Protein backbone atom coordinates (compact mmCIF):
# COMPACT_ATOMS: atom_id res chain seq x y z
CA UNK A 1 0.00 0.00 0.00
CA UNK A 2 2.78 2.38 0.95
CA UNK A 3 4.51 1.73 -2.36
CA UNK A 4 1.33 2.23 -4.37
CA UNK A 5 0.61 5.56 -2.72
CA UNK A 6 4.22 6.65 -3.05
CA UNK A 7 3.86 6.22 -6.80
CA UNK A 8 0.85 8.55 -6.85
CA UNK A 9 1.38 12.18 -7.83
CA UNK A 10 2.27 14.43 -4.96
CA UNK A 11 -0.89 16.10 -3.65
CA UNK A 12 -0.15 19.74 -3.12
CA UNK A 13 -2.02 22.44 -1.27
CA UNK A 14 0.06 25.23 -2.77
CA UNK A 15 1.40 26.18 -6.16
CA UNK A 16 4.66 24.24 -6.05
CA UNK A 17 4.47 20.54 -5.21
CA UNK A 18 6.57 19.65 -2.16
CA UNK A 19 9.64 17.58 -3.06
CA UNK A 20 9.26 15.21 -0.15
CA UNK A 21 6.25 13.91 1.81
CA UNK A 22 8.15 14.98 4.93
CA UNK A 23 7.57 18.60 3.84
CA UNK A 24 3.81 18.12 4.34
CA UNK A 25 4.39 16.88 7.88
CA UNK A 26 6.87 19.67 8.62
CA UNK A 27 4.39 22.36 9.82
CA UNK A 28 2.87 19.97 12.36
CA UNK A 29 6.37 18.77 13.22
CA UNK A 30 7.40 22.34 14.00
CA UNK A 31 4.26 22.92 16.10
CA UNK A 32 4.98 19.71 18.05
CA UNK A 33 8.63 20.73 18.52
CA UNK A 34 7.63 24.12 19.91
CA UNK A 35 4.56 23.15 21.97
CA UNK A 36 5.16 19.50 22.85
CA UNK A 37 8.81 18.43 22.82
CA UNK A 38 10.23 21.70 24.18
CA UNK A 39 7.80 21.83 27.16
CA UNK A 40 8.59 18.21 28.05
CA UNK A 41 12.34 18.93 27.92
CA UNK A 42 11.69 21.96 30.10
CA UNK A 43 9.81 19.71 32.56
CA UNK A 44 12.84 17.45 32.83
CA UNK A 45 15.16 20.44 33.29
CA UNK A 46 12.97 21.99 36.02
CA UNK A 47 13.00 18.71 37.99
CA UNK A 48 16.78 19.11 38.35
CA UNK A 49 16.56 22.41 40.20
CA UNK A 50 17.68 21.91 43.78
CA UNK A 51 15.38 24.47 45.41
CA UNK A 52 11.88 25.75 44.87
CA UNK A 53 13.12 29.23 43.87
CA UNK A 54 15.02 27.55 41.05
CA UNK A 55 18.39 29.17 41.68
CA UNK A 56 20.79 26.20 41.40
CA UNK A 57 20.79 22.74 39.92
CA UNK A 58 20.98 19.55 41.97
CA UNK A 59 19.41 16.15 42.57
CA UNK A 60 17.56 17.20 45.75
CA UNK A 61 14.03 16.81 44.35
CA UNK A 62 14.76 13.37 43.00
CA UNK A 63 16.30 12.31 46.30
CA UNK A 64 13.35 13.72 48.17
CA UNK A 65 10.94 11.85 45.91
CA UNK A 66 12.71 8.51 45.61
CA UNK A 67 13.81 8.08 49.23
CA UNK A 68 10.34 8.41 50.72
CA UNK A 69 8.25 5.27 51.00
CA UNK A 70 5.04 7.35 50.88
CA UNK A 71 5.78 8.41 47.31
CA UNK A 72 6.28 4.80 46.23
CA UNK A 73 2.94 3.96 47.81
CA UNK A 74 1.27 6.77 45.84
CA UNK A 75 2.85 5.47 42.62
CA UNK A 76 1.61 1.95 43.42
CA UNK A 77 -1.89 3.24 44.29
CA UNK A 78 -2.07 5.22 41.05
CA UNK A 79 -0.99 2.29 38.88
CA UNK A 80 -3.33 -0.06 40.80
CA UNK A 81 -6.22 2.34 40.26
CA UNK A 82 -5.48 2.25 36.53
CA UNK A 83 -5.33 -1.56 36.52
CA UNK A 84 -8.59 -1.84 38.48
CA UNK A 85 -10.26 0.47 35.98
CA UNK A 86 -8.88 -1.67 33.13
CA UNK A 87 -10.13 -4.88 34.78
CA UNK A 88 -13.61 -3.46 35.46
CA UNK A 89 -14.01 -2.05 31.95
CA UNK A 90 -12.89 -5.35 30.41
CA UNK A 91 -15.27 -7.46 32.55
CA UNK A 92 -18.24 -5.35 31.42
CA UNK A 93 -17.00 -4.14 28.05
CA UNK A 94 -15.87 -7.44 26.57
CA UNK A 95 -19.32 -9.10 26.92
CA UNK A 96 -20.86 -6.01 25.31
CA UNK A 97 -18.39 -6.36 22.45
CA UNK A 98 -19.40 -10.04 22.09
CA UNK A 99 -23.06 -9.04 21.85
CA UNK A 100 -22.08 -6.37 19.31
CA UNK A 101 -20.27 -8.95 17.17
CA UNK A 102 -23.33 -11.18 17.04
CA UNK A 103 -25.84 -8.34 16.49
CA UNK A 104 -27.49 -7.39 13.19
CA UNK A 105 -26.03 -4.37 11.35
CA UNK A 106 -28.94 -2.19 12.48
CA UNK A 107 -28.36 -3.09 16.13
CA UNK A 108 -24.64 -2.64 15.69
CA UNK A 109 -25.27 0.97 14.65
CA UNK A 110 -27.44 1.56 17.73
CA UNK A 111 -24.87 -0.02 20.05
CA UNK A 112 -22.04 1.98 18.48
CA UNK A 113 -24.02 5.19 18.98
CA UNK A 114 -24.59 4.28 22.65
CA UNK A 115 -20.86 3.66 23.09
CA UNK A 116 -19.74 6.88 21.39
CA UNK A 117 -22.32 9.14 23.05
CA UNK A 118 -20.73 9.10 26.54
CA UNK A 119 -17.31 9.65 24.98
CA UNK A 120 -18.50 12.93 23.47
CA UNK A 121 -20.07 13.98 26.77
CA UNK A 122 -17.59 15.93 28.87
CA UNK A 123 -15.59 13.99 31.46
CA UNK A 124 -16.66 16.58 34.01
CA UNK A 125 -20.33 15.91 33.20
CA UNK A 126 -19.79 12.17 33.61
CA UNK A 127 -17.99 12.76 36.91
CA UNK A 128 -20.87 14.94 38.07
CA UNK A 129 -23.32 12.17 37.18
CA UNK A 130 -21.60 9.82 39.60
CA UNK A 131 -21.95 12.30 42.45
CA UNK A 132 -25.71 12.22 41.87
CA UNK A 133 -25.66 8.42 41.72
CA UNK A 134 -23.23 7.53 44.52
CA UNK A 135 -24.01 10.30 47.02
CA UNK A 136 -25.53 9.73 50.47
CA UNK A 137 -29.00 10.34 49.06
CA UNK A 138 -28.02 9.12 45.63
CA UNK A 139 -29.63 6.63 43.31
CA UNK A 140 -27.71 3.62 44.62
CA UNK A 141 -28.47 4.35 48.26
CA UNK A 142 -32.17 4.91 47.54
CA UNK A 143 -32.25 1.49 45.88
CA UNK A 144 -30.27 -0.24 48.61
CA UNK A 145 -32.33 1.32 51.43
CA UNK A 146 -35.59 0.88 49.54
CA UNK A 147 -34.95 -2.83 49.02
CA UNK A 148 -33.89 -3.18 52.64
CA UNK A 149 -30.42 -4.41 51.69
CA UNK A 150 -28.79 -2.12 54.23
CA UNK A 151 -29.93 -0.25 57.31
CA UNK A 152 -27.76 2.79 56.69
CA UNK A 153 -26.70 4.61 53.52
CA UNK A 154 -23.54 3.13 52.02
CA UNK A 155 -20.49 5.32 51.80
CA UNK A 156 -19.54 5.27 48.14
CA UNK A 157 -18.24 8.76 47.47
CA UNK A 158 -14.70 9.27 48.71
CA UNK A 159 -13.96 5.57 48.53
CA UNK A 160 -11.84 3.77 46.00
CA UNK A 161 -14.74 1.47 45.16
CA UNK A 162 -16.87 4.44 44.15
CA UNK A 163 -14.01 5.86 42.12
CA UNK A 164 -13.45 2.57 40.26
CA UNK A 165 -17.19 2.28 39.53
CA UNK A 166 -17.21 5.82 38.12
CA UNK A 167 -14.06 5.30 36.08
CA UNK A 168 -15.60 2.14 34.64
CA UNK A 169 -18.27 4.21 32.94
CA UNK A 170 -16.03 7.18 32.23
CA UNK A 171 -13.36 5.07 30.48
CA UNK A 172 -15.37 2.17 28.99
CA UNK A 173 -15.92 3.83 25.57
CA UNK A 174 -12.13 4.08 25.18
CA UNK A 175 -11.90 0.29 25.60
CA UNK A 176 -14.85 -0.45 23.35
CA UNK A 177 -13.93 1.51 20.21
CA UNK A 178 -10.79 -0.48 19.31
CA UNK A 179 -12.41 -3.68 20.61
CA UNK A 180 -15.55 -3.31 18.46
CA UNK A 181 -13.26 -2.63 15.52
CA UNK A 182 -11.49 -6.01 15.78
CA UNK A 183 -14.73 -7.81 16.69
CA UNK A 184 -16.40 -6.62 13.48
CA UNK A 185 -13.50 -8.05 11.47
CA UNK A 186 -13.64 -11.58 12.99
CA UNK A 187 -14.91 -14.05 10.40
CA UNK A 188 -18.23 -15.51 11.74
CA UNK A 189 -17.42 -18.81 9.98
CA UNK A 190 -14.72 -19.42 12.58
CA UNK A 191 -17.36 -19.48 15.32
CA UNK A 192 -19.54 -21.88 13.36
CA UNK A 193 -16.53 -24.10 12.67
CA UNK A 194 -15.60 -24.13 16.33
CA UNK A 195 -19.17 -24.96 17.38
CA UNK A 196 -19.64 -27.68 14.76
CA UNK A 197 -16.42 -29.32 15.94
CA UNK A 198 -18.10 -29.65 19.32
CA UNK A 199 -16.57 -26.72 21.23
CA UNK A 200 -18.78 -25.13 23.88
CA UNK A 201 -19.39 -21.36 23.58
CA UNK A 202 -17.00 -20.79 26.48
CA UNK A 203 -14.27 -22.76 24.74
CA UNK A 204 -14.88 -20.85 21.51
CA UNK A 205 -14.69 -17.58 23.46
CA UNK A 206 -11.35 -18.34 25.07
CA UNK A 207 -9.72 -20.31 22.24
CA UNK A 208 -11.02 -18.48 19.15
CA UNK A 209 -12.47 -15.04 19.86
CA UNK A 210 -10.16 -13.86 22.63
CA UNK A 211 -6.88 -14.49 20.73
CA UNK A 212 -8.32 -12.85 17.60
CA UNK A 213 -9.54 -9.84 19.59
CA UNK A 214 -6.28 -9.50 21.57
CA UNK A 215 -4.80 -6.60 19.55
CA UNK A 216 -7.98 -4.51 19.88
CA UNK A 217 -8.34 -5.46 23.53
CA UNK A 218 -4.76 -4.39 24.23
CA UNK A 219 -5.25 -1.10 22.35
CA UNK A 220 -8.38 -0.38 24.42
CA UNK A 221 -6.65 -1.29 27.69
CA UNK A 222 -3.83 1.12 26.83
CA UNK A 223 -6.25 4.01 26.40
CA UNK A 224 -8.23 3.17 29.56
CA UNK A 225 -5.09 2.84 31.67
CA UNK A 226 -3.57 6.07 30.37
CA UNK A 227 -6.80 7.98 30.89
CA UNK A 228 -7.71 6.57 34.32
CA UNK A 229 -4.28 7.25 35.84
CA UNK A 230 -4.36 10.91 34.79
CA UNK A 231 -8.08 11.59 35.45
CA UNK A 232 -7.47 14.33 38.00
CA UNK A 233 -11.01 15.71 38.31
CA UNK A 234 -12.69 12.31 38.72
CA UNK A 235 -10.03 11.28 41.20
CA UNK A 236 -10.34 14.41 43.30
CA UNK A 237 -14.13 14.92 43.16
CA UNK A 238 -15.19 11.28 43.62
CA UNK A 239 -12.12 9.97 45.40
CA UNK A 240 -11.93 12.95 47.72
CA UNK A 241 -8.94 14.31 49.60
CA UNK A 242 -8.06 11.17 51.54
CA UNK A 243 -7.23 9.09 48.48
CA UNK A 244 -3.94 10.42 47.15
CA UNK A 245 -2.83 9.70 43.59
CA UNK A 246 0.02 11.20 41.59
CA UNK A 247 -2.16 13.73 39.67
CA UNK A 248 -3.41 15.28 42.92
CA UNK A 249 0.17 15.49 44.20
CA UNK A 250 1.28 17.21 41.00
CA UNK A 251 -1.59 19.68 41.21
CA UNK A 252 -0.99 20.35 44.88
CA UNK A 253 2.77 20.93 44.50
CA UNK A 254 2.45 23.04 41.34
CA UNK A 255 -0.57 25.21 42.08
CA UNK A 256 -0.92 25.27 45.89
CA UNK A 257 2.61 24.87 47.25
CA UNK A 258 4.07 26.55 44.13
CA UNK A 259 7.00 24.15 44.26
CA UNK A 260 7.69 23.63 40.55
CA UNK A 261 10.82 21.48 40.74
CA UNK A 262 9.10 18.94 42.98
CA UNK A 263 5.90 19.05 40.88
CA UNK A 264 8.04 18.41 37.78
CA UNK A 265 9.70 15.45 39.49
CA UNK A 266 6.32 13.89 40.35
CA UNK A 267 5.04 14.56 36.81
CA UNK A 268 8.03 12.72 35.33
CA UNK A 269 7.45 9.87 37.79
CA UNK A 270 3.84 9.68 36.54
CA UNK A 271 5.04 9.76 32.93
CA UNK A 272 7.64 7.02 33.42
CA UNK A 273 5.54 4.69 35.60
CA UNK A 274 2.49 4.94 33.32
CA UNK A 275 4.66 4.43 30.22
CA UNK A 276 6.23 1.32 31.76
CA UNK A 277 2.82 -0.29 32.32
CA UNK A 278 1.68 0.80 28.83
CA UNK A 279 4.73 -0.94 27.35
CA UNK A 280 3.85 -4.14 29.22
CA UNK A 281 0.21 -4.05 28.03
CA UNK A 282 1.30 -3.37 24.44
CA UNK A 283 3.78 -6.25 24.61
CA UNK A 284 1.15 -8.62 26.02
CA UNK A 285 -1.19 -7.63 23.19
CA UNK A 286 1.48 -8.34 20.59
CA UNK A 287 2.34 -11.72 22.12
CA UNK A 288 -1.30 -12.81 22.38
CA UNK A 289 -2.07 -11.55 18.88
CA UNK A 290 1.16 -12.95 17.44
CA UNK A 291 0.25 -16.48 18.50
CA UNK A 292 -2.68 -16.33 16.08
CA UNK A 293 -1.55 -13.98 13.36
CA UNK A 294 2.10 -14.84 12.99
Amino acid at each position, binding site marked *: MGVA*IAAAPAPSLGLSA*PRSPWAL*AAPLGLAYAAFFVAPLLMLIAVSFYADERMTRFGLEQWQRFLFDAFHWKVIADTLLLGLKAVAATVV*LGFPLALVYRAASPAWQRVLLFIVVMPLLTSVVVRTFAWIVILGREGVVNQLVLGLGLAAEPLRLLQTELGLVISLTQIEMPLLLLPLLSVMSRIDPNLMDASASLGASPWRTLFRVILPLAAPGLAAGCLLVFASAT*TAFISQSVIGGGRLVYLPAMIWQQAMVAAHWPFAATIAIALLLSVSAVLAVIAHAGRVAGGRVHG
Partner: protein
Amino acid sequence: MARRHTVGELSYGLVIGTLAVFALIILVGPILIVLATSFTDSRSIRFPPQGFSFRWYELLLDEVRSRQIHRAAGNTLHVAVMSAGLATLLGTAAALGLSRIAGRGGRLADAFFLSPLVLPGLAFGLAALMYFTLLGFRPSLELIIAGHLVVVTPFVLRTVGASLSQLDPSLLDASRSLGAGPVHTFRRVTLPLIAPGIAAGGFLAFMASVDNVPVSLFLSSARTDMLPIRMWGMMESTLDVRVAAVSGTLILAAFLLMLVMERLTGLTRRMRG
Protein backbone atom coordinates in the same frame (compact mmCIF):
# COMPACT_ATOMS: atom_id res chain seq x y z
CA MET B 1 -36.01 -32.34 16.41
CA ALA B 2 -34.86 -29.20 18.18
CA ARG B 3 -31.34 -29.35 19.55
CA ARG B 4 -31.17 -29.30 23.33
CA HIS B 5 -29.26 -26.46 24.85
CA THR B 6 -26.27 -27.58 26.85
CA VAL B 7 -25.27 -26.20 30.23
CA GLY B 8 -22.39 -24.41 28.55
CA GLU B 9 -24.67 -22.62 26.08
CA LEU B 10 -27.14 -21.59 28.76
CA SER B 11 -24.49 -20.31 31.17
CA TYR B 12 -22.70 -18.49 28.34
CA GLY B 13 -25.87 -16.69 27.26
CA LEU B 14 -26.81 -15.86 30.83
CA VAL B 15 -23.41 -14.56 31.97
CA ILE B 16 -22.48 -12.68 28.79
CA GLY B 17 -26.01 -11.29 28.39
CA THR B 18 -26.23 -10.07 31.98
CA LEU B 19 -22.82 -8.40 31.88
CA ALA B 20 -23.57 -6.76 28.51
CA VAL B 21 -26.91 -5.40 29.75
CA PHE B 22 -25.18 -4.10 32.85
CA ALA B 23 -22.53 -2.45 30.65
CA LEU B 24 -25.24 -0.72 28.61
CA ILE B 25 -27.02 0.51 31.76
CA ILE B 26 -23.80 1.84 33.26
CA LEU B 27 -22.90 3.58 29.97
CA VAL B 28 -26.19 5.35 29.34
CA GLY B 29 -27.80 5.55 32.79
CA PRO B 30 -25.64 8.30 34.27
CA ILE B 31 -26.19 10.56 31.27
CA LEU B 32 -29.97 10.17 31.42
CA ILE B 33 -29.92 10.73 35.18
CA VAL B 34 -28.00 14.01 34.83
CA LEU B 35 -30.33 15.15 32.07
CA ALA B 36 -33.41 14.41 34.20
CA THR B 37 -31.88 16.03 37.29
CA SER B 38 -31.24 19.28 35.45
CA PHE B 39 -35.00 19.89 35.17
CA THR B 40 -35.55 19.71 38.92
CA ASP B 41 -37.62 22.33 40.67
CA SER B 42 -35.77 21.96 43.95
CA ARG B 43 -32.59 23.52 45.27
CA SER B 44 -30.87 20.19 45.74
CA ILE B 45 -29.47 17.81 43.18
CA ARG B 46 -31.31 14.56 43.57
CA PHE B 47 -32.64 11.79 41.42
CA PRO B 48 -35.52 11.36 40.79
CA PRO B 49 -35.90 15.16 40.49
CA GLN B 50 -38.61 16.88 42.51
CA GLY B 51 -40.99 18.75 40.27
CA PHE B 52 -40.25 19.87 36.75
CA SER B 53 -39.01 23.31 35.83
CA PHE B 54 -36.59 25.22 33.65
CA ARG B 55 -35.54 27.42 36.59
CA TRP B 56 -31.87 26.33 36.57
CA TYR B 57 -31.67 26.82 32.84
CA GLU B 58 -33.21 30.27 33.28
CA LEU B 59 -30.63 31.10 35.94
CA LEU B 60 -27.94 29.76 33.62
CA LEU B 61 -29.11 32.13 30.88
CA ASP B 62 -29.17 35.11 33.27
CA GLU B 63 -26.44 37.39 31.92
CA VAL B 64 -25.63 38.99 35.21
CA ARG B 65 -25.80 36.15 37.69
CA SER B 66 -24.14 33.60 35.39
CA ARG B 67 -21.61 35.96 33.86
CA GLN B 68 -18.58 33.86 34.84
CA ILE B 69 -20.08 30.74 33.32
CA HIS B 70 -20.85 32.62 30.10
CA ARG B 71 -17.30 33.91 29.88
CA ALA B 72 -15.87 30.44 30.52
CA ALA B 73 -18.18 28.99 27.85
CA GLY B 74 -17.15 31.72 25.38
CA ASN B 75 -13.45 31.07 26.04
CA THR B 76 -13.98 27.33 25.65
CA LEU B 77 -15.75 27.75 22.30
CA HIS B 78 -13.10 30.18 21.03
CA VAL B 79 -10.24 27.85 22.00
CA ALA B 80 -12.04 24.80 20.57
CA VAL B 81 -12.74 26.45 17.20
CA MET B 82 -9.18 27.76 16.87
CA SER B 83 -7.34 24.66 18.07
CA ALA B 84 -9.57 22.27 16.08
CA GLY B 85 -9.24 24.49 12.99
CA LEU B 86 -5.44 24.55 13.24
CA ALA B 87 -5.34 20.84 14.05
CA THR B 88 -7.45 20.08 10.96
CA LEU B 89 -5.14 22.10 8.68
CA LEU B 90 -1.81 20.89 10.07
CA GLY B 91 -3.08 17.37 10.79
CA THR B 92 -4.52 16.83 7.30
CA ALA B 93 -1.30 18.04 5.65
CA ALA B 94 0.77 15.82 7.94
CA ALA B 95 -1.49 12.80 7.34
CA LEU B 96 -1.11 13.31 3.56
CA GLY B 97 2.67 13.35 3.97
CA LEU B 98 2.86 10.47 6.46
CA SER B 99 0.68 8.23 4.27
CA ARG B 100 3.40 8.36 1.61
CA ILE B 101 6.31 7.61 3.92
CA ALA B 102 6.92 3.88 4.05
CA GLY B 103 9.09 1.94 6.43
CA ARG B 104 10.48 2.52 9.88
CA GLY B 105 10.74 6.32 9.60
CA GLY B 106 7.04 6.62 8.78
CA ARG B 107 5.98 4.34 11.61
CA LEU B 108 8.11 6.23 14.12
CA ALA B 109 6.74 9.58 12.93
CA ASP B 110 3.19 8.17 13.24
CA ALA B 111 3.84 6.96 16.79
CA PHE B 112 5.37 10.32 17.72
CA PHE B 113 2.45 12.37 16.40
CA LEU B 114 -0.12 10.07 18.08
CA SER B 115 1.73 9.91 21.42
CA PRO B 116 -0.32 12.69 23.11
CA LEU B 117 -3.24 10.22 23.10
CA VAL B 118 -1.60 7.96 25.70
CA LEU B 119 0.80 10.40 27.35
CA PRO B 120 -0.43 11.44 30.82
CA GLY B 121 -2.11 14.73 29.96
CA LEU B 122 -1.45 16.17 33.38
CA ALA B 123 2.33 15.88 32.96
CA PHE B 124 2.06 17.69 29.63
CA GLY B 125 -0.23 20.37 31.10
CA LEU B 126 2.29 21.12 33.84
CA ALA B 127 5.14 21.09 31.31
CA ALA B 128 3.28 23.61 29.14
CA LEU B 129 2.64 25.89 32.14
CA MET B 130 6.33 25.89 33.13
CA TYR B 131 7.49 26.33 29.54
CA PHE B 132 5.29 29.30 28.73
CA THR B 133 5.79 30.97 32.10
CA LEU B 134 9.58 30.62 32.05
CA LEU B 135 9.61 32.02 28.50
CA GLY B 136 7.89 35.08 29.93
CA PHE B 137 4.36 34.68 28.53
CA ARG B 138 1.36 35.85 30.55
CA PRO B 139 -1.70 33.55 30.70
CA SER B 140 -3.75 33.95 27.52
CA LEU B 141 -6.19 32.05 25.35
CA GLU B 142 -3.50 31.78 22.64
CA LEU B 143 -1.36 29.65 24.96
CA ILE B 144 -4.32 27.38 25.74
CA ILE B 145 -4.94 27.04 21.97
CA ALA B 146 -1.28 26.00 21.48
CA GLY B 147 -1.56 23.45 24.31
CA HIS B 148 -4.87 22.04 23.01
CA LEU B 149 -3.45 21.83 19.48
CA VAL B 150 -1.02 19.14 20.63
CA VAL B 151 -3.63 16.99 22.38
CA VAL B 152 -6.41 17.27 19.74
CA THR B 153 -4.38 16.82 16.53
CA PRO B 154 -4.05 13.00 16.94
CA PHE B 155 -7.83 12.70 16.33
CA VAL B 156 -7.44 14.37 12.92
CA LEU B 157 -4.37 12.27 12.07
CA ARG B 158 -6.26 9.06 12.86
CA THR B 159 -9.44 9.74 10.87
CA VAL B 160 -7.66 11.32 7.87
CA GLY B 161 -5.01 8.58 7.94
CA ALA B 162 -7.75 5.93 7.90
CA SER B 163 -9.50 7.65 4.94
CA LEU B 164 -6.22 7.84 3.01
CA SER B 165 -5.43 4.17 3.57
CA GLN B 166 -8.82 3.28 2.05
CA LEU B 167 -8.17 5.48 -0.98
CA ASP B 168 -7.89 3.43 -4.18
CA PRO B 169 -4.50 4.33 -5.76
CA SER B 170 -5.83 3.40 -9.20
CA LEU B 171 -8.15 6.42 -9.03
CA LEU B 172 -5.11 8.68 -8.72
CA ASP B 173 -3.36 6.83 -11.54
CA ALA B 174 -6.45 7.21 -13.71
CA SER B 175 -6.63 10.93 -13.02
CA ARG B 176 -2.96 11.36 -13.85
CA SER B 177 -3.07 9.28 -17.03
CA LEU B 178 -6.00 11.38 -18.19
CA GLY B 179 -3.67 14.34 -18.05
CA ALA B 180 -4.62 15.96 -14.75
CA GLY B 181 -1.79 17.66 -12.88
CA PRO B 182 -1.06 16.95 -9.21
CA VAL B 183 -2.98 19.99 -7.99
CA HIS B 184 -6.01 19.14 -10.09
CA THR B 185 -5.91 15.49 -9.01
CA PHE B 186 -5.68 16.49 -5.37
CA ARG B 187 -8.57 18.96 -5.58
CA ARG B 188 -10.89 16.87 -7.74
CA VAL B 189 -10.09 13.29 -6.64
CA THR B 190 -8.23 12.99 -3.32
CA LEU B 191 -9.86 15.83 -1.40
CA PRO B 192 -13.51 14.90 -2.10
CA LEU B 193 -12.78 11.28 -1.13
CA ILE B 194 -11.12 12.11 2.18
CA ALA B 195 -13.37 15.08 3.03
CA PRO B 196 -15.65 13.07 5.38
CA GLY B 197 -12.56 11.84 7.23
CA ILE B 198 -11.28 15.41 7.57
CA ALA B 199 -14.68 16.61 8.83
CA ALA B 200 -14.97 13.77 11.35
CA GLY B 201 -11.43 14.44 12.59
CA GLY B 202 -12.09 18.16 12.93
CA PHE B 203 -15.28 17.45 14.88
CA LEU B 204 -13.55 15.02 17.25
CA ALA B 205 -10.73 17.53 17.75
CA PHE B 206 -13.32 20.21 18.56
CA MET B 207 -15.06 17.97 21.11
CA ALA B 208 -11.72 16.93 22.65
CA SER B 209 -10.83 20.60 23.12
CA VAL B 210 -14.20 21.48 24.68
CA ASP B 211 -13.74 18.52 27.04
CA ASN B 212 -10.05 19.02 27.84
CA VAL B 213 -9.11 19.16 31.52
CA PRO B 214 -5.38 18.36 31.95
CA VAL B 215 -4.07 21.21 29.80
CA SER B 216 -6.70 23.81 30.73
CA LEU B 217 -6.21 22.97 34.42
CA PHE B 218 -2.71 24.47 34.32
CA LEU B 219 -2.97 27.05 31.53
CA SER B 220 -6.27 28.75 32.40
CA SER B 221 -6.42 31.64 34.82
CA ALA B 222 -9.16 33.84 36.30
CA ARG B 223 -9.28 35.85 33.06
CA THR B 224 -8.95 32.86 30.75
CA ASP B 225 -11.33 30.56 32.62
CA MET B 226 -12.44 27.41 30.79
CA LEU B 227 -15.81 25.69 31.20
CA PRO B 228 -14.67 22.26 32.51
CA ILE B 229 -12.44 23.95 35.08
CA ARG B 230 -15.24 26.28 36.19
CA MET B 231 -17.61 23.31 36.47
CA TRP B 232 -15.05 21.54 38.61
CA GLY B 233 -14.97 24.59 40.88
CA MET B 234 -18.78 24.63 41.07
CA MET B 235 -18.78 20.93 42.01
CA GLU B 236 -16.08 21.25 44.66
CA SER B 237 -17.58 24.17 46.57
CA THR B 238 -21.36 24.30 47.01
CA LEU B 239 -22.89 21.74 44.71
CA ASP B 240 -24.55 24.40 42.51
CA VAL B 241 -27.62 23.04 40.67
CA ARG B 242 -26.50 25.07 37.64
CA VAL B 243 -23.84 22.35 37.16
CA ALA B 244 -26.74 20.08 36.22
CA ALA B 245 -28.09 22.68 33.78
CA VAL B 246 -24.66 23.19 32.18
CA SER B 247 -24.30 19.39 31.97
CA GLY B 248 -27.76 19.07 30.42
CA THR B 249 -26.87 21.70 27.82
CA LEU B 250 -23.59 19.94 26.98
CA ILE B 251 -25.31 16.54 26.72
CA LEU B 252 -28.01 17.84 24.37
CA ALA B 253 -25.45 19.76 22.27
CA ALA B 254 -23.21 16.68 21.97
CA PHE B 255 -26.21 14.53 21.05
CA LEU B 256 -27.41 16.89 18.30
CA LEU B 257 -23.91 17.45 16.90
CA MET B 258 -23.37 13.71 16.88
CA LEU B 259 -26.58 13.10 14.92
CA VAL B 260 -25.57 15.73 12.35
CA MET B 261 -22.01 14.39 12.02
CA GLU B 262 -23.30 10.81 11.78
CA ARG B 263 -25.42 11.87 8.79
CA LEU B 264 -22.65 13.87 7.15
CA THR B 265 -19.61 11.71 7.80
CA GLY B 266 -20.63 8.32 9.24
CA LEU B 267 -18.86 9.50 12.39
CA THR B 268 -19.30 6.46 14.65
CA ARG B 269 -17.96 3.99 12.09
CA ARG B 270 -14.91 6.21 11.63
CA MET B 271 -14.36 6.30 15.38
CA ARG B 272 -14.59 2.50 15.53
CA GLY B 273 -11.99 2.40 12.78
